[in-house]
């Protein structure tokens, strides 16, 4: 059996944690840590790009979408202008489609102005094997031709299986392969935190390796 | 050669021993042995000139007679032959079967009838009585050589275009008039082709509406039965209604008999138990003509069989090669196997429920069909002097039908995996056993 899928949360991804569910593992980022990390990432993105010119944010559903939106809000505060925001669903581009029960795709929203010739920053919650990002690059290829693609993630937990790296990282979180990294966000789970816990052998989360939600 | 059947319940009534000699029932003894049996006594010495069958717990019936069988030879020997059909018949307890005329070529001449008659004799397991077509080539227009068939060695008395209906009323009238000359009877497959055409395959009703299958309304049968009843009255000739399937047909037949009209009727085992609901899975094994009907019709048919409105059970044994059934339902061939399971179905449905006794079964599966077909050597009362055509039945045997073990060449068996109570254990044709212990001799 394939080991280690990091699960974000053992409950419905877009609903709050059910009351009384066991919160496993230890917290590595609390709500304030997350907020600081996102603020820093937002500044880094602007610094690297030297401003808003041609900048576009694409969140990878589901939690990457919320993070992308939060980053765009911070950028708007700093620059006083909106950065175009979109979402990029990767369900149909996964390389493990045949190994999973079929899932319906999420919404893909082209950012205003498109992606052709833009500096696209992909935003996701956890970077793990790199396969989600590879799928996102394939999906983007069918949307248009960006001038540059960069990657911003809240957590990089290592164990890359493909030659992919993040440009902007909220927290580097060394982890064992068999540990789970769970990200919860207010918009989908009711509150913010990032936890790490040992893999529960009784529970099979069946989640894509990078922690993209089931 | 003598044959002794010991301890059978004769037609479910009294227990007796039967002594059979030279193909005839020589003695019926209710106790204390036989007077006419000369020489060493029955079983213990194993005397070679006397075979003994221990029939303790078994019911003895006069050999069963099937008014309606399709033996497929000549023309479709891949589906069945006279020989394989005879084997199936013997296993089913039959000592005589009427072989329908829709062979290829059609049995519409004396020569064709004699050929089938001879094939039956050659097989030697069951008396095969050919049925002659009513119309030439089953075309429904011109009379077949009814008289020549009657005069042939096959002595055809029952005529039928079964598979097709003799639809043209003028042709039906002429045929009925013509057969009066030799006491013939027409067995009519009642299906008005304008009300139920060639694609009709499912009882017309809620299910056919839902499933989108072309409907076969009961009135397509009933209107022909009603018409033929009046023609029978008008011509003074005999009509036999093949495979009655609806309550409406039963009503007409009941009325006709009350009028003294010379009409008889048969019902198949499958129409006594299987209903149209079985078609929901589109399995062509349940495709048959006339189609399976709803519960109300099944109930009416059972009552009619019990009260004598329907005279006989006839199998309409219709073997089909596998590839003829492996089509979409609408395209698949019509028909089911029936010879080997008929007695068990009747036992399960009619005797098991108390609606009929074994004596009634003797009537509907032997005596009445023999009388209708004019087969003097069959359908007796198990009395002294009668030809020894006998079927032994174990009324309590539990049968689980396995289509793979059938003696028929075909496998279109709707009873596969069903549990039935009552089984044929032995069949005797003019004193010679054809089946013993449930297997061919």
């Amino acid at each position, binding site marked *: 059996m394939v080991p280690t899928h990091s699960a974000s949360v053992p409950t419905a991804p877009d609903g709050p944690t059910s009351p009384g569910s066991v919160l496993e593992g230890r917290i590595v980022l609390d709500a304030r840590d997350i907020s600081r990390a996102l603020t820093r990432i937002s500044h880094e993105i602007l610094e690297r790009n030297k401003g808003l010119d041609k900048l576009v944010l694409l969140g990878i559903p589901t939690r990457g979408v919320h993070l992308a939106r939060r980053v765009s809000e911070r950028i708007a505060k700093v620059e006083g202008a909106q950065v175009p925001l979109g979402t990029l669903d990767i369900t149909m581009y996964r390389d493990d489609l045949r190994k999973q029960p079929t899932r319906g795709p999420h919404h893909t929203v082209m950012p205003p102005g498109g992606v052709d010739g833009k500096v696209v920053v992909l935003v996701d919650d956890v970077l793990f094997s790199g396969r989600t990002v590879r799928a996102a690059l394939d999906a983007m290829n069918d949307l248009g031709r960006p001038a540059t693609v960069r990657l911003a993630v809240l957590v990089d937990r290592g164990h890359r299986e493909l030659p992919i790296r993040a440009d902007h990282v909220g927290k580097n979180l060394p982890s064992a392969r068999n540990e789970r990294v769970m990200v919860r966000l207010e918009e989908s789970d009711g509150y913010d935190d990032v936890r790490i816990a040992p893999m529960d052998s009784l529970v099979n989360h069946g989640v894509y390796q990078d922690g993209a939600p089931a | 050669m003598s044959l002794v059947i010991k301890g059978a319940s004769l037609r479910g009534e009294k227990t007796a021993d039967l002594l059979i000699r030279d193909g005839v029932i020589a003695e019926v003894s209710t106790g204390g042995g036989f007077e006419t049996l000369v020489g060493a006594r029955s079983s213990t010495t194993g005397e070679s000139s006397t075979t003994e069958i221990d029939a303790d717990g078994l019911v003895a019936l006069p050999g069963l007679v099937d008014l309606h069988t399709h033996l497929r030879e000549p023309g479709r020997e891949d589906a069945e032959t006279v020989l394989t059909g005879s084997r199936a018949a013997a296993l089913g307890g039959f000592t005589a079967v009427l072989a329908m005329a829709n062979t290829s070529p059609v049995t519409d001449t004396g020569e064709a009838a004699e050929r089938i008659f001879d094939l039956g004799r050659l097989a030697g397991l069951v008396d095969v009585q050919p049925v002659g077509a009513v119309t030439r080539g089953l075309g429904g227009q011109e009379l077949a050589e009814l008289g020549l068939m009657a005069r042939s060695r096959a002595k055809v008395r029952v005529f039928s275009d079964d598979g097709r209906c003799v639809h043209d009323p003028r042709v039906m009238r002429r045929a009925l008039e013509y057969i009066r000359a030799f006491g013939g009877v027409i067995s009519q497959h009642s299906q008005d082709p304008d009300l139920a055409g060639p694609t009709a395959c499912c009882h017309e009703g809620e299910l056919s509406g*839902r499933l989108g299958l072309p*409907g076969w*309304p009961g009135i397509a049968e009933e209107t022909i039965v009603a018409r033929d009843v009046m023609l029978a009255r008008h011509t003074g000739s005999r009509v036999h209604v093949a495979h009655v399937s609806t309550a409406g047909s039963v009503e007409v037949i009941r009325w006709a008999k009350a009028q003294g009209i010379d009409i008889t009727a048969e019902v198949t085992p499958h129409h006594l138990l299987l209903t149209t609901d079985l078609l929901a899975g589109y399995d062509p094994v349940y495709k048959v003509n006339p189609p399976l009907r709803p519960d109300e019709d099944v109930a009416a048919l059972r009552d009619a069989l019990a009260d004598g409105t329907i005279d006989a059970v006839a199998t309409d044994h219709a073997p089909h090669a596998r*590839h003829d059934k492996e089509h979409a339902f609408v395209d698949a061939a019509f028909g089911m196997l029936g010879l080997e399971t008929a007695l068990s179905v009747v036992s399960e449905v009619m005797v098991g429920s108390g609606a009929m006794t074994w004596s009634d079964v003797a009537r509907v599966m032997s005596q009445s069909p023999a009388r209708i077909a004019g087969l003097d050597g069959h359908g007796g009362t198990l009395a002294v002097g009668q030809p020894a055509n006998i079927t032994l039945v174990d009324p309590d045997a539990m049968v689980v039908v396995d289509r793979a073990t059938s003696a028929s060449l075909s496998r279109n068996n709707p009873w596969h995996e069903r549990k039935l109570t009552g089984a044929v254990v032995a069949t005797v044709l003019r004193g010679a056993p054809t089946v013993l212990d449930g297997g061919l001799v």
Partner: protein
Amino acid sequence: MNKHLLSIDDLDVNDVSVLFDTAAEMHDVQRRSVKKLPALRGRTVVNLFFEDSTRTRSSFEIAGKWLSADVINVSAKGSSVSKGESLRDTVLTVAAMGVDGLVIRHGASGAAQQVSQWTEAVVINAGDGMHEHPTQALLDAYTLQRRMGTLEDKRVAIVGDLTHSRVFRSNILLLHKLGAHVTVVAPPTLMPAGVTAWSKDAGFETSYDLDEVLPDADAVMMLRVQRERMNGAYFPSAREYTVGYGLTRERLAVLKPDAPICHPGPMNRGLEIAADAADAAQSAVLDQVSAGVAIRMSVLYHLLAGEESGA
């Protein structure tokens, strides 16, 4: 989701919702310059059509190709009985080539179900005789839902030759599942056998009077009527049919102005539907066609992309 799509009854309400959501995404894909998704790469889909149907077949073909599947069209027209090869043999021959999905269109009711018992491939019913046409019903309901927001509690009228219509049979099941109130309208000769009992069981109403039903309808589905039915004595003449059951210009005026008009096509303009009605703003006919590809992409994706669900 069930392994096959043979009947609308293979789907529960949740399945329908998932299919519609995916179809909406597929609709967006249709508008991009790169219309392909790699989701069915490496899968082989055979369109096994025993009946002519350019429209449905090309719809499935495009759907499969836009998902990067390898799509093959096999035309098996001509009765298998007359060719001497049983239906089972025909299907097994095709399936033996290593097929993942079989899209079957056949002139006999029940054919898709029978075929599913003879092969390991996923079977999708593209229309079996008079029985069902599940993807048509799905695209009809999807189109109506997009136009009306919801089908719950909406009054839908289905008008035409119900007896011979697989579109009607699938739609009756699906619209009921989605909470719509359906009234079917036809002359008595074109109502299916046993419809009285069936309508009570399945919760729809029947009427011979189109003019009575039309003003209250939130949506109308006109079914194609074949002129050949006059030979079967189903109705006396085309003009009498139109006067009694056609969506004429006069009836168009009586219809609610935003009530969508559907037709599975091909249309007999002037017989069951006036040209004005076919081309009216309310007409959803072209939407139905584009929805058809999106729905079929959704169905193919959900039945073929993942591991065998074996539900």
